[in-house]
Every structure is written in structure tokens, then in C-alpha cells.
């Protein structure tokens, strides 16, 4: 892992991409990229959303073909025209969204497309044998082999994705933001797996938005910006701040966004609220102009509190008061009428209409604003509102009629956020607002949230991102096992908060293998 070692016994290149160019329609996704990985190393690939990382990965994985440039594999010029070609070379990819088959068992998922055969038929015995080994490698118990993937947690699904990638002969393993959906202890497990793989000579390409974690796992880092590979350096030569600067091409301000100084009257009050076996006895208040951060690890119940506030799930006991009035919310439309807006965590499932235009996505839910006659949507109003928000949020898009599915994660999130802002809400509930979003977009989203609070909105942010909760909250409540266990001011340290969230037995600085 140390840089001296890497230079002393520098192995030959496993995979080299030279002068890669790729356009989609008229948009240049990659202007010029050079990229080379060595066996037994972890090569981090970073860049803002839209910098070209995903495209470069797709070209290596065979999901897209480059317009120009060459690919050299183990010293031999190669063509990767399809995913099957890539897999034949041993290039295995774990995509950001697990590419799995929910109806099939873990064992079947792992071997799809790479079945071990004897004659015509699948050799189930050989697969079972290999399965045991693979589950061991990724740290899953044997009994999970027969479980349908659809019933696993996201973290487990990702471990299955890695097992799947390793089922074939892996020479290059691409991990596209594997840590985005994982909790810290799950990341430790992931890193242990990666170290085991590099020790056996696999080249790992690692994409992440969490720059700090690169220093724990990566050997080399390549920074992309505006479709170009800007620099490739051993990780030890750079600092987080330097990498961030290279990514955005300028100096990143570290100052916190202004915080709501003068909180107004209480907007939301939860009084001993309990959900159906998700959380218990939760009492909290959010004042007008205040940003309250609800921090909890995945599965803590923090997200479930938000679901009840918004009327997606129902409380089993306790009261919820809005500006002092007890309210019962049984539907999202009632929540909206009361001025409560939600930015959901899983934006692709709950928050967006991916094939519809950006304008449609911004104005969906606020169609009344668009109409002069009831039920009549004015296209021009839709366009005007969309344009205003695209400008306000600095959304990068070729046109407001482009479908949301054509945008990068950070920009799509801004669009979904924009929808909540069309009518300035009384209470805004955000769940994981910057999950899978790059540094620049994250800052902008935080700025928007702060501005809304300054304008008097009460904001409740549910997040499992420690840096985020510290940066934007006026008050931090920690949720553990369905209960609020601690409250902090924003000057608390990360260690204090993490300890409260994960229980006394956990030590966040520990590296478990």
C-alpha cells in the first residue's frame, strides 16, 4: 500500500486506454482520456458528475464503445465491443445500482452468464463448491445462497454483486461507487474484500465521491474533469483538498453555508411518536428557519420517522403537531396541502419520472400553479417555472425538455429538489439529499437548503452522511435502534456523533478486517 513499494516493484500494465474519445449525439462525454491500471493495485477514479467517469467505465466494461482510441490488455491491443468481450478478458464490473435478478436465488445470480457447465447441463455441484468460496471471499454466510436476491438488503445485494463479478475469472474489477449505499462498518468489510483481491493480483478500479475513504484504500488516483483525465498520481502525493481542487478546477471554499441564526416558532412537533416496530417514543421539534439533522446509520429508523411525518407510513401511537395543531396525515397529498414537502431518498423510485422532461419533473405535484382553469396545464407556465429553477439551481442540462434519465445523479437530484421549492414549503423533509452526488453539486444542494431555512422554512434532514449532518444542521439528533439517543450542537466532533449512533461498543477509528 505504501508508495515506495509501488514504485520499487512496479508490475507491467494490466489494462491501458489511450486517447479515448466518446460522444453521445452532440455531447462530448469524453474529450480525451488516458488511463492505465496495474495488477494488484487499487486505482481510484474521481471527478464531478458529468466529468466522464461513468462513460470511461462503460467503455472498459464493454457497455459502450469508444469513438476513437485504443485499448491494450496485458500488452496486447484488444477490442471490447460488448460486455461479453469484456467478461472474456476478465473485466468484471460492479455497477452503482446492483444489476441483479430479484426473483433468482443468490447462487443463481452469481453464476448468471457464467454458468459452470458439464456438457449441456449446468454443473450444480461445481457451482455449489465455487459458491462457498465466493461467499467466503465477500463475507456472506453460506446459508444465503438459496435466498432470493430481492429479499436481501441493499448492502447484501452489493456483496452479491461483487461475488458475481468474481465468479468468472477476474483480472480487472471495476467498483462504481460501492460505498455510496453502505454504512461505515459495511465499508470496512468491503475494503477487506478489496485488499484480499489485490493481494491475489486483481487490478481494482474504484470510483467514489467520498474522497476521504480513497486514502484508506487506493494506491493511485486519476482525476477527471470535463471529459479529460487531468492527472494520475500515487494517492500519497495528494491531499483531499488537492483532489477536490483538481476535480472542480478551482479552489473549493471550506466555509460552512450560513446557518439559520434566529429560529422562529415551532413548526413541527413530534410527541412520543412511535411507528409500527420501526421507531419508538420519538419527540422532537423543528422551528421555522431551523435545520434539524436526524443522523442514524442505515436501519436505525431515522428514515422511517420521515416517512411517518410525510404520511407514507402511519404512526402506531403518539402525536404530531403542526404549528401547535395536532394533525393526522394519512397521505402524501394531505401532507402537501399542509405545506409539508419531502425529498425522498431513493429518487429513482420515489422521486422522479425519469422518462419525462426536466420541466415535467420540476412542476409535477404543483400542476395547480400551472393552470388558470382547473385541470388545465399551461405549457408556457411549465416552461417558465422550469427555466427559473434550472437557472436558480445551476442544473447542467442541454435543454429543459431533456428527459431526467439523461442527466447525471447530482443534476437529477437538483431537479427533484427543485420540485419541492416551486411552492416554498412550510416544512421540508429531506432524506439522504446528497447520496451519490458529487462534491460540487453537494455544496449547491446544501446552499439551497440553507437558503430555504433562511426564508423561514423548517427543515428536517435525515442523513447517514456524518460530514453532511455536521455541515448543515443547526441541531443534530442521533437515532439508534429506533430511538433518539443523543442531541448535539454542530460543533460536536464526528467521533462523538458516530459513537452515539453506533453504540458504545463501536469504535469508528478501528479498521476491522
Amino acid at each position: 500500500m505504501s508508495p515506495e513499494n509501488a514504485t520499487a516493484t512496479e508490475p507491467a500494465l494490466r489494462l491501458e486506454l489511450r486517447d479515448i474519445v466518446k460522444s453521445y449525439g452532440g455531447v462530448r462525454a469524453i474529450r480525451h482520456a488516458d488511463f492505465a491500471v496495474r495488477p494488484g493495485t487499487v486505482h481510484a477514479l474521481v471527478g464531478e458528475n458529468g466529468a466522464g467517469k461513468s462513460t470511461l467505465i462503460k467503455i472498459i466494461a464493454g457497455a459502450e464503445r469508444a469513438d476513437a482510441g485504443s485499448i491494450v490488455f496485458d500488452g496486447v491491443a484488444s477490442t471490447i465491443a460488448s460486455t461479453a468481450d469484456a467478461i472474456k478478458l476478465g473485466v468484471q464490473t460492479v455497477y452503482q445500482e446492483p444489476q441483479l435478478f430479484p426473483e433468482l436465488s443468490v447462487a443463481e445470480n452469481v453464476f448468471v452468464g457464467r454458468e459452470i457447465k458439464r456438457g449441456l447441463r449446468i454443473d450444480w455441484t461445481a457451482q455449489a463448491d465455487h459458491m462457498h468460496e465466493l461467499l467466503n471471499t465477500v463475507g456472506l454466510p453460506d446459508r444465503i445462497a438459496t435466498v432470493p436476491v430481492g429479499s436481501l438488503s441493499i448492502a447484501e445485494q452489493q456483496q452479491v454483486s461483487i461475488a458475481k463479478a468474481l465468479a468468472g475469472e477476474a483480472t480487472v474489477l471495476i467498483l462504481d461507487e460501492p460505498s455510496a449505499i453502505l454504512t461505515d462498518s459495511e465499508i470496512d468489510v468491503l475494503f477487506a474484500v478489496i485488499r484480499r483481491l489485490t493481494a491475489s493480483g486483481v487490478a481494482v478500479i474504484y470510483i467514489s465521491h467520498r474522497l476521504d475513504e480513497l486514502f484508506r484504500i487506493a494506491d493511485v488516483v486519476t482525476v477527471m474533469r470535463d471529459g479529460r483525465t487531468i492527472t494520475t498520481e500515487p494517492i500519497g502525493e495528494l491531499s483531499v483538498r488537492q483532489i477536490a481542487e483538481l476535480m472542480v478546477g478551482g479552489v473549493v471554499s471550506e466555509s460552512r453555508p450560513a446557518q439559520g441564526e434566529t429560529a422562529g416558532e415551532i413548526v413541527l412537533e413530534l410527541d412520543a411518536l412511535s411507528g409500527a416496530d420501526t421507531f419508538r417514543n420519538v419527540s422532537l421539534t423543528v422551528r421555522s428557519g431551523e435545520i434539524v439533522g436526524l443522523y442514524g446509520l442505515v436501519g436505525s429508523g431515522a428514515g422511517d420517522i420521515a416517512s411517518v411525518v410525510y404520511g407514507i407510513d402511519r404512526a402506531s401511537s403518539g402525536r404530531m403537531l403542526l404549528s401547535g395543531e395536532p394533525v393526522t396525515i394519512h397521505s402524501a397529498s394531505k401532507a402537501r396541502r399542509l405545506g409539508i414537502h419531502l425529498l425522498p431518498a431513493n429518487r429513482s423510485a420515489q422521486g422522479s419520472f425519469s422518462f419525462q422532461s426536466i420541466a415535467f419533473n420540476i412542476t409535477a405535484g404543483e400542476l395547480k400553479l400551472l393552470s388558470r382553469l382547473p385541470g388545465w396545464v399551461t405549457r408556457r407556465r411549465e416552461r417558465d417555472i422550469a427555466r427559473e429553477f434550472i437557472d436558480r439551481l445551476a442544473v447542467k442540462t442541454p435543454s429543459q425538455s431533456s428527459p431526467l434519465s439523461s442527466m447525471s445523479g447530482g443534476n437529477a437530484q437538483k431537479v427533484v429538489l427543485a420540485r419541492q421549492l416551486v411552492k416554498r414549503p412550510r416544512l421540508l423533509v429531506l432524506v439522504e439529499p446528497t447520496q451519490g452526488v458529487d462534491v460540487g453539486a453537494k455544496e449547491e444542494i446544501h446552499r439551497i437548503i440553507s437558503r430555504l431555512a433562511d426564508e423561514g422554512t423548517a427543515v428536517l434532514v435525515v442523513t447517514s452522511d456524518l460530514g453532511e449532518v455536521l455541515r448543515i444542521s443547526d441541531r443534530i439528533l442521533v437515532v439508534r435502534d429506533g430511538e433518539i439517543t443523543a442531541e448535539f450542537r454542530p460543533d460536536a466532533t464526528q467521533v462523538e456523533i458516530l459513537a452515539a449512533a453506533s453504540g458504545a461498543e463501536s469504535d469508528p477509528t478501528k479498521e476491522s478486517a
Partner: protein
Amino acid sequence: MSVDQAGASAPAVRATARRILPPPVTGQELVLVGVIVVLWVLLGLFTPAFLSAGSIRPLLVSVAPIALIGVGMTFIIITAGIDVSVGGAIMLCAVVTAKSLVDFDLALPLAIALSIGLGLLLGLLNGVLIAYGRVHAIIITFGTANIFQFLALRVFGSSTVNGIPGTFDVFGRGEAGRTFGVPHSFLITIVIVAVAWWYLRHTSGGRNLFAIGGNAQAARLAGIAVQPRILAAYALTGALVGLAACFFIAAGTSTLDQAVGSGRELAVIAAVVIGGTSILGGRGSVIGTLLGAILVQTVTSGVTQLGWPSQLANLFVGVFIIIAVGTDLLRQRARKAS
């Protein structure tokens, strides 16, 4: 987390293999067997003639073409597709084959080859349009259903096809159509169901169909040739339609009327869905489809034998479909909730 499996012994590995193998029959299939047995016993109690060979045999003959096409339909629905053109395709294959029998007095193997060949062609047409045209299967097959029907009616002219020679009597209800008392068409169907069951369970081609229906994008990224597999499923269904058309010709008495095949697509889809194949794709079985076909035909024939109005059969089949689909949806929701 068993450390003791590290040096996994041969029996241990075999045991694990059994565990990761997809189960040979599903719970839903056992439930279906139970429902069929109960129905048969009840029908036997109320109409004693029901459990006689003279009543069971025609039932099996009527099950054969539905289950046969159902095998292909199961493959298609597993890939999250559908084919509503099989009714029209039966009609076209049957009328062309029947006419050829009348006009050219084809020998049996040639007649079968003609019908299967034509069906294969129709299936390939559907498959190419769906796999490579990337239009939803229901749209394409709805279109081709109408085209097939138009062509078939043109071949019919304005009348039935009369004077069909007894070439297909080996598939008929008569003495020539059975061995050891079992109808040939049903035997052929059983063999094809068995082969299809083995294919779906034990070959990568079969397992990949489930993968495609579960998540086509993920299947493509896993290196599966998605489009050829989808094309093959429709082609197979077409070929089976061709064979089933021979059974339909054999079922008539030297005439073929224009109602042949009409509405059969719904009977086939009903059999597949009742058999536990998820209409959303990714899950299904041909044994279930065979049982579904037997259930559907039992209800139809039972209603007739009890002397009830025949529309009641539709009611019962409808209820079974809703129960089957409902169970599937509840199962999926339960899984999402966990």
C-alpha cells in the same frame, strides 16, 4: 458461517448443490395438484361418468394443444414478454395445413413439417419484431394476431374446409389416436413438457431466460445475448403452435371451421398464469402450465357435464386467474416489505 465446510467433502458439496438447485416443483404446483384432485373427486361424486376413461380421455385431448403452446408461452412470459397472436397463428397454420391435406393429400410427416414450419415462420416474425424492433410484445403480437387472422380468413375463403383426409387421426380422439389408452397428443405434450422442464432447470440457456425476465439490463451487462434468446422463445412458441394446429385439425371430423384457434390465446395465457408463472417475468414453470391447462379444461368440461350454463366456466377460470395473479402480487409485496 461454517468453518467445517472449508475442506468440503464430496457429500457436503452435493448437499449444497441440491440446495442451490432450483426446486423441482414449487408450492403453487402442489396446490394446483390438490385443487385438481379435489375437483375431480367432486365431479366424480356428482357426475359418476366424469371419472370414466370415456370422459377423461377427451379431457386430455383438449388439454394437449393448450399445454403444448403453453410451454412456449411460459418461455415468453418468463422473459417478461407475451404473445397474444397464438390464436391467429393456430388458425393460419390449421387452415393452410388442412387445405394442403385436401388439395395435395400430403403424407403425415410432410403435413406435420408444413404446419410446424409455418408456425416457426410466424413465431420468427413476432420474435424479430419484438427482440430487435424493441416495441412492446403486446403491441406487436396484437398487430400480428390481426394479420394472421386476415390471412387465415383469406385462405378459408368464405366457407369451412371440408373433406379433410384422416391423415391426422393419430392425434385424434379415436382408437388410432391412443397407445395403451392414452391419447398420442397428450403423450407428445408430456414429453415436450418434460424436455422443457429439464431445459429451464438445468441449462444455462434456460436459466438465462429467467435472468432476462428478471432484469433485462442486468442480463445484458452479465454478457447474456438477450435478443437472440427472446427471438428463440417466440420462434419456439410458433413451432409449438404449428404442432398444436395439427391436433386441432385432428379434433374435427374431416372439417375445419373458421372458429379454429379463436380465443385460444386467452386459454393458453390463463393456463400459464394459473400455473404460477409471473406475468411480470423472471419466474415460472412448465409443469405449472401443464397443471394450469388441466385445471382450465377440467373446469370447462366439468361445467358442461354438470349441465350448468357454459358461461360459468369463464367465471371460474376468471376467478382462478385472479387468485393466481393475486397470490403472485402478494408474494412480491411481502418480499418487498421484508
